Structures are given as C-alpha cells and as structure tokens.
C-alpha cells in the first residue's frame, strides 16, 4: 500500500486551474522531486496535499485514509510535514521556540534537528526575524521534522539562497533522507533535485507530464518536459502511468 496516493487532483485559484488531473503515488521511503517552470502548479499541488489549499476535485489518500476534507493541523497529526515556500517562520519566536512549537513524539527531537542542521545550534536563542536566508530555511525544515512526519513536503528550499547556504542545506537534507525520510520535494534546480531524489516528476501547466527514476531519465528529457518542448518519453497523464 502506498503512503501517499494522489488521484485525479484538480486545484483552482479562482478562475485559474492551477493543477489539472494530477495522479501519482509515493511509497514509504520514496524521494520524489517535483520540477517545473514557474506557475506550473508544483507549489499549489504541495499545499493542497498539506491542507493549505482546498482542491476542487480528486482524492488524496494518506496511509489508508482519504484526507481531502481534513484540516491542515489534522494532516500534521497523521504524519505530514510541510516546509512552505517562503519559509513562513514565526518571527516573534526564537529558533528553538519555532522548532519546539511543532514538536510531536518520535525520532526527531530538538537535539537531533540541531545536529542535522549544525548552523542552527549557535542561533537557537535568536528570534527568527533576524536570521539569514539559509538559517531561516534550515529552521523551517527543522520545524517540519519536529512534527516527526511520515512524509516530508519541501517547497522550493533553495529559492533565494546563496550557493553556499544551498550547499549546506542539501548536505543536511541528505542526512535526513539517509535516516529514512519519505520526501516530496518541489525544486526548480533540476541538477540538485535529480541528485537528491530517487524519482523525478515534471509538471507543465498544471499537469504531470513526465515521471521516472532519476537514474533512468536524462537531463535533456527532463529539460524538454520542463519547458514543454515535447512530451517526453515516459508520459504520465494518467494515474496508471504514474505508478
């Protein structure tokens, strides 16, 4: 049984249909990178899975439960942790408080997160409002880990960060994945996404147009799907094609 199964999902922003009939599945321990150009619908899809945006159609099955009507906080209790685009830390709370406020029992503890993200240790008593971009992103990932999720949803973790900060973050993310995390990563940096995750899926204009194992897809195939130059080799318009 899949950990996450998205079936024929559609999400609208008013009149704009941002996600169109997307279907895919994730097994426990899977790492899937969702790539695509700006406005392809990746972040909307992620937010819809996490409960931050209500889909207009489709199903989201997590474990053995359809969670489409569950509010976001109940999805967290079931084991979903989102690192939202733009970090969205709580600015008046310290780094430590940002982490502890999300704490749920499980593998990840405050010490474990500070060990996985060493840059946070000296900043644990600093307010989130005064952190650098890399520190903010590390705190946001750490906060999601503190919920001890069965599935970690990461939205544009490298966006707006200095290359050194991105390198540090991805090093820490590799540690997280090595510890068995199931990850759905939205990323615009194709190279990093393919290097980190076992599988890659590409979205174009709200649709999933390509999916496959990172090792099996060439960078050219993904790039062509990314820009919509042609529908690449492994099409995934339907649910069957995504599994």
């Amino acid at each position, binding site marked *: 049984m899949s950990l996450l199964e998205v079936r024929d999902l559609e999400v609208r922003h008013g009149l704009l249909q941002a996600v169109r009939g997307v279907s895919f599945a994730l097994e426990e321990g899977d790492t899937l990178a969702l790539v695509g150009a700006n406005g392809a619908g990746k972040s909307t899809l992620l937010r819809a899975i*996490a409960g931050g945006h209500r889909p207009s159609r489709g199903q989201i099955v997590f474990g053995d439960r359809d969670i489409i009507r569950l509010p976001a906080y109940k999805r967290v209790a079931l084991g979903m942790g989102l690192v939202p685009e733009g970090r969205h830390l709580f600015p008046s709370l310290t780094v430590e408080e940002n982490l*502890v406020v999300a704490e749920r029992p499980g593998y990840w503890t405050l010490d474990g997160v500070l060990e996985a993200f060493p840059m946070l240790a000296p900043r644990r008593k600093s307010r989130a409002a005064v952190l650098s971009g890399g520190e903010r992103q590390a705190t946001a990932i750490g906060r999601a880990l503190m919920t001890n999720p069965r599935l970690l949803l990461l939205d544009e973790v490298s966006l707006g960060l200095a290359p050194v900060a991105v390198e540090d973050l991805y090093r820490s993310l590799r540690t997280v994945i090595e510890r068995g995390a199931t990850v759905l990563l939205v990323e615009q940096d194709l190279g990093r996404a393919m290097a980190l995750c076992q599988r890659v899926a590409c979205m174009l204009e709200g649709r999933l147009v390509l999916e496959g194992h990172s090792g099996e897809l060439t960078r050219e195939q993904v790039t062509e799907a990314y820009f919509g130059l042609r529908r690449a080799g492994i099409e995934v318009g339907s649910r069957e094609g995504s599994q």
Partner: protein
Amino acid sequence: MTWIDAVIQGILLGGLYALFACGLSLMFGVMRIINLAHGDLALLATFMVLVISQHLGLSPFAALVIVLPGAAVVGYALQYAMFNPSLRGGELSPLLATFGLSVVIGNMLLEVFSPDTHSLSAGALTTASWHITSQISISALSAVIFGAAVLVLGGLQLLLSYTQLGRAMRATADDARTAELVGINAKRVYAIATAIALATAALAGTFFGMRSSFDPTLGPSQLIFAFEAVVIGGLGSLWGTLVGGILLGVAQTVGAQAFGAEWAIVSGNVLFLLVLAFRSQGIFAAREAHQ
C-alpha cells in the same frame, strides 16, 4: 504628602484597570480582535457573582469559584459560535459582532436587574486599610486587587513564554495559517485565549463590584478604561497593559487632586490622547507580548 497619596491611590486603581484590560490585550494580541463587549461581559460576570452570593449566601470570593470557570466556558463557546465565524468576514466583522454582543448584554442586564445600583461586599476587606502616615493610607481591598493584577498578568506572561500552549498562542498570533500547517489547531487556540480573557474580565468585574457600586449601564465605561490602558501601554503587550493601567490610574487621581474630583476622568482621557498623538504604538511595543 497628599500628592504622594494621590500617586499611590492611582497606582492601586491602575491595578484594577490593568486587570480589566489584560483580557482585551490578550484577545487583540492573539487574534487582532478588539472585543467591544469586554466591559459588558465583565459586568455580566459581576451580576452573576451578585446573584450567586445572594442566593447561595456565599461571599463574592467564594462565588468566583463558580463564576471564573463559567466565564471561561462562555468565552470558549463564544469564540467557536460567534468570533471564529466573524473572523472569516474581514477586519470589520468581529468589531460589529462584539458591538452587537455588547448591546445585547447591556439590554439584557437592564431588563433583568433594572437600572438600580448594586454592590458586592468584600467583608472586612472593604474597610481594612494600612495607615502609612496621617495623610497616606492604603486600602487592603485595593492592595489585594493590585496584587491580583500583578499575579494574573505575570502568570499570563509566564504562560505565553514558557508553555507549549503559550508558544502555540504566539505562533498563531504571528501567522495562523502557517500555525495550522505545523499542527496547531488555530481555532482551538483562539477559543482558549478568549476563555482566559473572559475569566480575567470576570475577576476584574468582581473586584470592580467590591470597590464601587455598579449598574447594568457601566459596561461601556469599563471598556473605555480598559481600552485606554491597553493603548497607553501598547496594543498586545501584557506588561505594557499593567503600566498603561497604572499610568491611567495615576493620571486620574493626580488630575482629581490638582483640579478637583470632576477632572479625574478627563485627566485620564488627556493622557490617552497625548499617547495617541505622540506615541501611537503605546509605551511598550507590541512585540513584548510575544516574549
């Protein structure tokens, strides 16, 4: 000496204002709701204490054992039934909803209790006092009220700073949507904040009833004093609220001492207007509430 006495009485009076104001400050800090029914809800609790005292023969302090949890339950229910739905309607909706609630409570109290004045007896505490000098004395009741205000505000500050509930309240105040995405039930946090706010309002209303006579029309004036204390101290700041209450109380008693008793309220209002004109964010910045 009379001036020193005026300042001391003002500080003690400020404790009552701060107690009235802390619930208002908490609700604004967490939800950005200005509860216009705050004074009437406090007065409703005062009348409940009166009814329980009269019918069960209990002292007002004993009646609080029933009224404080009752006020918290009413606050929790009000948040779910009225304030949460109104929050979805934009910034103006909660203001209108609480204004409507204020009118309903005020008229209901008038209907049930008539415009007659009432008072609560604090027993020996009402008349007990410490004479520091021939011109300076401290009323035991006022000291108890001030001590209660410091304890309540300090307790709330500790709750916000060092408990998981407090962190959840501050996180929700910062960004309710993100709070939900990290597993916090924002509506429940709001309801708990309103429950605490109404319990503190009930305590303040009861002390007010012990300190002076009251009638069903006094809710709005208590709201104004509470609102002035919150604005002077800084919106959303708990320690600021205590300082704001004290400054308001001192302004009133010193104004009365300088110009006559009829100038007490005006003096407080002048201080309020000066703060609005020259430091509209209040004496303490709002971020203090999140410490």
